[in-house]
Each structure stands twice: as structure tokens, then as C-alpha cells.
């Protein structure tokens, strides 16, 4: 039984604060966040307008936070096995889990409505790597990271970047698979996708053609756990250090600061 298999994993989603060119459907305008919060890849809770979404191991809870100090639970529903990370864009929630990418749209009350569940498994049962996700303009970007030890442990190491066409939320289509070393958090700004490598800094891809991501820049020499690209500044979190880079010139990214916390 899957429950008894010793595969502990971690799944992370990266939130990207970008204006949308296309409408994913659902509460498109209403779903624009009123706060200027940008969550990193690892978040398992986030707010959209007057709603707080919080994941537990198998469920998503929706709270009304019209009064932010006192949330009221308005919905709780089962999502799937070992869900761990959540990302929102334009009225659509992408939830990363042990086995699959779950996609929900938000109804007029901000309650999630299931659209699809896309399994990652192509190697047989129970191979369930970490899977942070970001999405924009009908494309979802997922990094899968499974290693032989540690929190992303699995039998067969899988470390890759995948892109999916999610124009039809109910039927995501795999577009590309790119091998990486040990990808962690990720973030999107326009045509550039930033991916943290656990022990190898950051890789920057041009994803203008999402079926064929190409490397435009790499930042080496540090450990990276999560990152947030925001308005020309890339924030990278390592085990004890926060480093920031100016990426306005994408082929000449320069370090701004590095602080040991």
C-alpha cells in the first residue's frame, strides 16, 4: 500500500506576481491579489482577495478573511495524497503533491473546483518526486526533484524541469522534459524562468518557446533552496544566506548583496 512505502517528499510551488496576458478563466479580474505579497515556491498557504487557502496533508481549506484577524472556514475538501504546495494565478490553483499536479479553478465564492489531476509517474508506481510549479499564459512549469536520500528521497532519482500546456485545465499536455541536477524552487518573470539548483546556484531559462526551454544564464557557487524574481531583482534563499541579484540585463546578472542571516 502506498501509505506504507517509505518515500518522504517535498513539493513546492513558486508564486509569480505578474500581470496576465491571458485569462485562465474563473474569477479572472476578481482573483487579482489585492496585497503585494509574493510567496516563495514552498508555500502551502496563500491569500487571494478575501480568501485564505491552506493545505493540510490531503485537503485544502478555504477561509473567508474579509476580517483578516478572524478567518471563517467556508470550505474544506479532499485534494489527493500528500499535497504540499500551492500556487495561484488568475483564478486557478495549482497544487503540487506526491503523485500529481492538481488543478482547481475558483468559483464566484472563491471556493476551489477540481479541474484535473495529472500524474507525474512515468516510471511505475510510487515514484513521487518533489514538484514545485509556476504557471502563466496557459503554461505550467514544474521541477521534479527526487534524490537517493533526504526529504526528496525515492528509489530512482528524477531531476528535471517539465513544461505543460494547461490551456485546457482539465487536460494538461506535457510539452517538454529537461534534465537538471537537483532543482528546487522556481520563479517566472516574463519569458524567463529561474530555477534554484540545490548545490549549484541558479539556472535561468528562456521559455519563450515553452516546448524548448533554453539556458540563458547560470549563477554558480552557492546553495539555493528557494527564490523569488521580482521586478528585476532575484532573491535567493540558501540554508543560512540570502543573496540578491539584478537581472535587468539577463545575460549579465550581477550580485547586489549577500547576507548571512
Amino acid at each position, binding site marked *: 500500500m502506498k501509505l506504507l512505502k517509505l518515500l518522504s517528499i517535498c513539493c513546492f510551488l513558486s508564486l509569480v506576481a505578474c500581470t496576465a496576458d491571458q485569462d485562465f478563466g474563473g474569477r479572472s479580474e476578481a482573483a487579482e491579489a489585492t496585497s503585494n505579497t509574493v510567496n516563495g515556491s514552498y508555500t502551502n498557504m496563500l491569500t487571494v482577495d478575501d480568501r485564505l487557502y491552506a493545505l493540510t496533508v490531503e485537503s485544502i*481549506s478555504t477561509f473567508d478573511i474579509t476580517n483578516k484577524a478572524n478567518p471563517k472556514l467556508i470550505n474544506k475538501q479532499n485534494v489527493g495524497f500528500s499535497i504540499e504546495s500551492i500556487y495561484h494565478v488568475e483564478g486557478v490553483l495549482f497544487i503540487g503533491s506526491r503523485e500529481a499536479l492538481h488543478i482547481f479553478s475558483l468559483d464566484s465564492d472563491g471556493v476551489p473546483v477540481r479541474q484535473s489531476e495529472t500524474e507525474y509517474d512515468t516510471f511505475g508506481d510510487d515514484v513521487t518526486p518533489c514538484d514545485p510549479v509556476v504557471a502563466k499564459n496557459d503554461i505550467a512549469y514544474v521541477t521534479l526533484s527526487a534524490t537517493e536520500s533526504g526529504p526528496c528521497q525515492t528509489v530512482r532519482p528524477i531531476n528535471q524541469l517539465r513544461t505543460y500546456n494547461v490551456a485546457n485545465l482539465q487536460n494538461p499536455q506535457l510539452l517538454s522534459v529537461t534534465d537538471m541536477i537537483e532543482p528546487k524552487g522556481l520563479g517566472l518573470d516574463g519569458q524567463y524562468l529561474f530555477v534554484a539548483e540545490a548545490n549549484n546556484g541558479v539556472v535561468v531559462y528562456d521559455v519563450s518557446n515553452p516546448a524548448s526551454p533554453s539556458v540563458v544564464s547560470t549563477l554558480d557557487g552557492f546553495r539555493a533552496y528557494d527564490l523569488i524574481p521580482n521586478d528585476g531583482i532575484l532573491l535567493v534563499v540558501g540554508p543560512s544566506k540570502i543573496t540578491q541579484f539584478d537581472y535587468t540585463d539577463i545575460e549579465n546578472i550581477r550580485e547586489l548583496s549577500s547576507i548571512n542571516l
Partner: protein
Amino acid sequence: MKIFLPIFLLIAMSLSSCFEDLAPADQEGLAPIYTDPFDYSLIKGEGPRESVNLGKVVLVGDLIYVNERLTGIHVIDNSDPSNPVKIAFIAVPGNNDFTVDGNFLYAGNGVNLLVIDISDLMNVRVTESFANFYLNEEFGLGLAPPDYSGVFECVDLSKGAVVGWEQKMLVSPRCYTR
């Protein structure tokens, strides 16, 4: 009945089990740290401190919030990204996950989910507590130490909600996990 009990607990606690009939020797292991989910005295804003193990990050305008695993959240003034400055630490025992919306921090506190007014970082105020929000008996969450193999003191929920685990000498521990 006695035979079925440990099997039920095995299923209920995933990979954890209880010793039946044995009187295990006193030994080192993990013991639960309990919290009264409505006692907010340990949730407080303090001056900045050093980090040991950073976790999740949230960016809100010029402020960076970054988790210190199982301990709380560092707050960094990033108005000048070439010179970020730590300004505070929000102590939240057992914290790994959080988000921020305006003046409110939604944060895990062991198995509890807290709502914290952070408009004054030196005087943060808990406004709501969802006790045992993350407790999950099927997966042993809040009932067994995560990422651990060995003996542990069985959780007794009548003592409170589990906010973490600590290494100590256990008296005849009756639970273990692999």
C-alpha cells in the same frame, strides 16, 4: 482486543507502532513538546537573531520574511536590496509554513494554525488560533516525530497540541517509528 489494538494504531499512525506488553528500557528518544493552542505567551516579536536553518520565504514590498525552521520568522528590511537589514524575529514555535497578508501573518505553530497581527513587530498579537489544524491521525502528523526512526514518547492529546519534539531520556517509551 489486545491483539487488534496495535494493528489499529499501526494503520492510524502510518509507520509508527506501539510496543505491546513489553516494558522497554529507559532510553534516549524523542518526546513531544505540547502547547496550549490558546496560550499565546510564546508568540512574540523580538530583535533580530542569527539563523541556523532557513526555510520558506515571502516577499511583501520592501520586507522579506523568511522562516527559521521550527522556530519562527526573520523580518528583513529590503528597501535597499544592495543592503538588506534584519530588523526583527517573530518567535513562533514549531513554525515551517506561513504567508502574510497586509498586517496579518498566517503561520503554522506545530499542529496549530495561528493568525497574528504584526502591525507592530515588537508587540505582535495572536487574533485567532485553529487548534490541531494540521493534526492528521492517518499520517501520524502531530502524533509521531517526522523524518525519524526510533523510539518516542507516545502522544497524549489531553496534554495539548504538539508543537515540536525534543531529545530526552524517555521512561519506558512505548512508541516507535521507522
